[in-house]
């Protein structure tokens, strides 16, 4: 429909981003990415297991997909910057999702260290996507620091709890001029759809697709739900009312007037 998201010169048609963690196999992941027509995907950087020969995940990412490296494992801005630089050196591009997490239970991001990492990496020319707690004041600082988008959480990573931060996400959508991409916690297509109806620019889903019994079908289902939510947002979400509004005509009834 001529509707696309543009970030750093990249046209993004598919507003579902898919993370590559936890798939049962790379070939299945590949088909899921292909069939859902994903434009953006995330990967992580880890020490190689020097004892074994494993396959290269990048070989299983469709060439049309733009890769965003996450800084998972980083506990402060410095570690995030180190990972970003390594990722760039590995020629995987300069799109970086900042994840700075010190909380092992809820994996909630550290907004302040995340902000510092954004400031540093933007200066080095990275296209930076901060995963963050949905706080307006910090989101404004992310904008000032030059982030490409903000990625507030819907609920804890992998919790499948949906958009529990809806109130704050709506405020971010209204107040922040950057794309708002809900990342984390979306467990069902309806929840991804709801984010789009709220006016989010995109969503990132990983766990709910990767650990599904049918990752390929689920990836497509999420893609369709995201598209549906986007269409609804663009077409205008209809107003709600407490009382009913007839869908069949209220005249021309076949009835004698009972008086």
């Amino acid at each position, binding site marked *: 429909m001529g509707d696309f998201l543009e970030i750093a010169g990249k046209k993004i048609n598919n507003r579902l981003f898919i993370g590559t963690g936890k798939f049962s196999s790379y070939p299945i992941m590949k088909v899921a990415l292909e069939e859902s027509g994903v434009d953006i995907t995330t990967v992580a950087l880890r020490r190689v297991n*020097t004892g074994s020969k494993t396959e290269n995940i990048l070989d299983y990412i469709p060439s049309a997909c733009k890769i965003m490296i*996450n800084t998972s494992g980083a506990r402060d801005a410095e570690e995030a910057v180190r990972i970003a630089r390594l990722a760039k050196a590995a020629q995987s591009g300069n799109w970086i999702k900042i994840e700075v997490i010190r909380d092992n239970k809820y994996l909630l991001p550290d907004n302040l260290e995340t902000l510092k990492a954004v400031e540093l990496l933007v200066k080095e020319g990275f296209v930076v996507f901060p995963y963050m707690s949905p706080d307006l004041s910090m989101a404004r600082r992310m904008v000032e620091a030059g982030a490409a988008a903000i990625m507030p959480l819907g609920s804890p990573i992998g919790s499948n709890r949906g958009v529990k931060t809806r109130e704050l996400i709506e405020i971010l959508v209204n107040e922040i001029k950057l794309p708002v991409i809900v990342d984390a916690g979306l467990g069902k297509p309806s929840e991804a759809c709801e984010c789009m109806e709220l006016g989010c620019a995109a969503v990132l889903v990983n766990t709910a697709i990767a650990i599904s019994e049918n990752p390929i079908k689920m990836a497509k289902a999420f893609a369709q739900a995201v598209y549906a939510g986007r269409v609804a947002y663009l077409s205008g979400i209809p107003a709600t009312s407490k009382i009913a509004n007839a869908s069949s005509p209220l005249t021309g009834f076949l009835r004698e007037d009972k008086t």
Partner: protein
Amino acid sequence: MLIKINGKAEEIKTGLSLVGLISFKGLCAEKLVIEHNLRIIPKEEWQGVVLQENDSVEILSFVGGG
């Protein structure tokens, strides 16, 4: 000779370059990234870096992540 690879102390033979280390470890160079003593080494320089006692080497690659 003892060096640190990915945080663990390992014994390697003297005079090994980064290319040699990768080969010794049976790794495929493509899409790896190496940090040598906290400095990222571009692939074209791997041949020229010869490991010294107590060096620290990080060898990283991409994995699935959200």
